[in-house]
């Protein structure tokens, strides 16, 4: 399979505190990569490097290379806005913008130049359907997005990312704190999306990783301990630490 993202010797520190050390990794196109590991092992940080959201934090230091379709996205002078349009992100806490459901979805596309009302409406409907939210909100697109339940808000955030028509979707513990039904719907959504999108899913839930992903990377204290196909890692892990983590002997 083709590699969509290739990570080479990536190290990262905040304020001289090293958070990722020499990570090497590959994300295959049209598949789901799961990143798992205990809290504070650098998962969120890695994800935020993929769309350069890490730029917003002062005093950080990045070494190494990250290629998206062969282009180094860490190179200075790269147009980060264009990168972020190609690499969408869903955060662990759903953050609807304080406007209507429709406006939440139309926000990105509109600012990227899609002005045609018809086109926007199609885009909104398609994204909401993909995120399995359409049936629940189709009659109240003009209501405030803040009124939705937590699970609905998170699916709205996924739909909002989809409305940008990105190539890669990053999800940082997207089902953290959600009820089982919403969690299930999101997992189903991800399964249906991987046909045409490359997905990176950070999750603390080992079961979720086993259920939904194709490949898995296991991070521990900023080090990539193991990387391989989900099936292999969950049946015959090579590293003892991976085994410990999966079988729940770890924090």
């Amino acid at each position, binding site marked *: 399979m083709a590699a969509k993202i290739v990570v080479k010797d990536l190290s990262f520190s905040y304020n001289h505190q090293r958070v990722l050390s020499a990570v090497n990794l590959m994300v295959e196109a049209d598949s789901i990569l799961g990143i798992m590991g205990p809290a504070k092992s650098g998962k969120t940080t890695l994800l935020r490097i993929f769309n350069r959201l890490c730029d917003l934090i002062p005093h950080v230091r990045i070494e190494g290379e990250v290629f998206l379709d062969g282009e180094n996205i860490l190179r200075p002078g790269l147009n980060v*806005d*264009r990168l*972020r349009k190609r690499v969408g992100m869903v955060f662990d806490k759903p*953050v609807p913008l304080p406007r209507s459901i429709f406006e939440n979805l139309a*926000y*990105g596309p509109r*600012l990227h130049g899609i002005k045609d009302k018809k086109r926007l409406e199609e885009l909104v409907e398609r994204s909401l359907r993909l995120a399995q939210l359409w049936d629940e909100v189709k009659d109240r697109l003009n209501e405030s997005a803040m009124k939705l339940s937590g699970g609905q808000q998170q699916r709205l955030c996924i739909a909002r990312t989809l409305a940008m028509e990105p190539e890669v979707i990053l999800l940082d513990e997207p089902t953290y704190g959600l009820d089982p039904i919403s969690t299930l719907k999101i997992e189903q959504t991800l399964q249906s999306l991987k046909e045409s999108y490359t997905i990176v899913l950070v999750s603390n839930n080992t079961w979720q990783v086993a259920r939904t992903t194709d490949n898995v990377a296991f991070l521990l204290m900023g080090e990539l301990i193991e990387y391989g196909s989900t099936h292999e890692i969950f049946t015959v892990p090579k590293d003892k630490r991976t085994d410990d983590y999966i079988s729940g002997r770890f924090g």
Partner: protein
Amino acid sequence: MAKRINPLMLQRIVKAQLWSLTGFTIGILFFIIFFISIKGLPQITLEFLTSNPVDMGRSGGIFSTIVCTLYLIFVSLMIAMPLGVGAAIYLTEYTRESRLTHIIRFGTECLAGIPSIIMGLFGFAFFVMALGLGWSILSGGMTMSIMLLPTIIRTTEESIKAVPYELREVSFSLGVTRWQTVTKVVLPSALPGIVTGIVLGIARCIEETAVIIFTVGSSLRLPESFFDSGRTMAVHFYILAREGISMPNAYGTAAILILSILFINLSAYYLARQFLKKIC
């Protein structure tokens, strides 16, 4: 030595004293408002508001001074708003705390402390004389806008800082540029706070006198353009009262001044409350 007073007794006495001083202070406020209202409200008629002063203000109304005040507010805000809001956006969204921002903040604080008479001197020397704008609403508006800057910068900065950081992150993650994020997400959420600053600026334009006399002048004619001199309500009131021209008209003008300031402060307070409610 006298017997020590029981601490609880002492506390009761002190408390009573403090409460009466507080009551006294607040009493002064209500007294001022009631006194001016009782003396001034009977003077206020539709005619008083809509006719121009006659015979230096001895009779007639205050229409031209209302117009002049409104023009002045307009010019001051048209200049101070973009400058102040832009400065606040730069300080909050475009830089991190540094020596530079400290200097800018310190300068802004100093500017806030400059007394109006010095502003007036400067406005006169710079806008009226050096730039040759003469006594005009434009000179006054530019001087006032400098006076309003610190307030507008501070209130805008505070309300921008209150906008949750996550909203910006979401916007950036959608590939939206910083400026678009500022205009589409940050400023709309910060709007009530910004409006509070602007409303306070309006109040300042209404109450200011020293700066206006030096820069707008005190012509009683109805100003026709921003290059005309004019007389604001506060200046008119000052001249009526000081030269003893007409006490009833002075009280009437004072009542209008106080009522408008009261109204403006209450709306600023209301907006600020709305804002707090919204972000909590």
